[in-house]
């Protein structure tokens, strides 16, 4: 799980262009949206693409993503359970 969390942090930094952050800057239990990293609606859509491209998990809309993207850890746990890649 720790390895997946680290991998996920690196991928999030890359696909969301969080150029000034390192994996150490991201707290895996902090909220990703609104507070915490303060990501927005386009970021959420880009995370949906990330889920499918890297892990083979297809989400159909932003609403499905809302619960999964609550924090890096919650995302990682969902991926571990549902990944097809």
């Amino acid at each position, binding site marked *: 799980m720790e390895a997946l969390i680290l991998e996920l942090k690196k991928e999030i930094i890359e696909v969301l262009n969080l150029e000034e952050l390192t994996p150490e800057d991201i707290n895996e239990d902090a909220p990703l949206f609104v507070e915490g990293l303060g990501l927005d609606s386009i970021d959420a859509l880009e995370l949906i693409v990330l889920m499918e491209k890297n892990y083979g998990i297809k989400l*159909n809309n932003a609403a499905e993503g809302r619960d999964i993207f609550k924090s890096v850890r919650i995302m990682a746990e969902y991926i571990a359970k549902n990944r097809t890649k």
Partner: protein
Amino acid sequence: MEKNAWFIMIYQWSNNIISSLGFTTEENYTAVKQGNTGLKYYKNPFDFPEDAMLSLIDDEHLNNAFSSINTKQKTAYTRFEKAAILSAYKALEKTNIDVKSKKVVFILSTTKGNVELLDKKESELYEAERVYLWRSAQLITSFFDNPNEAIIVSNACISGAAAQITALRLLQQKIYDFAIVIGADVLSKFIISGFQSFKSLSVDICKPFDKNRCGLNLGEAAATIIYSSIENNRPLLSNNIVLLNGAIANDANHISGPSRTGDGLSIAIEKTLQNTNIQDIALINAHGTATPYNDDMESMAITANQLENIPINSLKGFLGHTLGAAGVLETILSGVALLDNMLLKSNGSENPKTICPLNIVLNNQNSFKTHFLKLLSGFGGCNAAILLKKT
């Protein structure tokens, strides 16, 4: 604006629409008045891996119609160029304008032009420069032997209104006598995939302002309005549509999401309606894309200007969101309807529900008022409003 500009009325001499519903304004209006939609369900359109509800121009009809007017030119034209040229041609046919005159200017409104040529499968068919909008514009003006460079407006989905505002200003300053405003966009895998990545497409016919609305439908079209100026001392024919005013304002909030307060659109409406008697307004033809946020945002901007009791409709349920063509196309249809004393229903809308309640036109209804307001919003936070009236 100079004071004497008020004495120059800018009116629509002629217009044309090319869309899924036909190749003339009359065909389009008749279809929409009868409640017929041009939206259809397509499987893997333009090699897009999913299905989509779209409003598409019939290719065979386009090619045949274009061949019959393309007598001199040896150039191979793209779909986008054919639609734009054909639409302008059909609008010009109804006038006696000398299109070769320096006093005639083309104003082209488009968001993506020939963008499908970026696809490796398409790019081999045309020269590399063909992806530039100015190159398509040159081909359009040279088809008609017009000596001026076209003015190319690329302002996201408000382009059609921005182009008309540009025409208004240029004609009022007497820089030109006629402005041929063409709004055109064709669909492609590029565009459809992009909107799908935003999860903003509805798989069914869209439902503007409806409590169950869930997204937009894309469409393609070419629409032309030929604007002409007339001095105050010459009589204006009746059965005309005059362009009175228009304004653009930015939300300064988010590059793709609508403002949650409708500030930019509200400012554009306020600026446009300066010196207007609200009681004269028969209709507000909204942007009405049927996404959850857009329609709410429009309801707030409309209410902020005390216009919530005025009948409001959206034409997106008939022709989809035609991007760079939308502002021109929807202005034409709303004007033709008004000359017919008619307000067209918002196809797809059944149970309106927005944050601020609106008076949505659910069935065709009569109106004998004279003015209408056209609203548009687009990516980049831009918003536009234009005011027109019938004579």
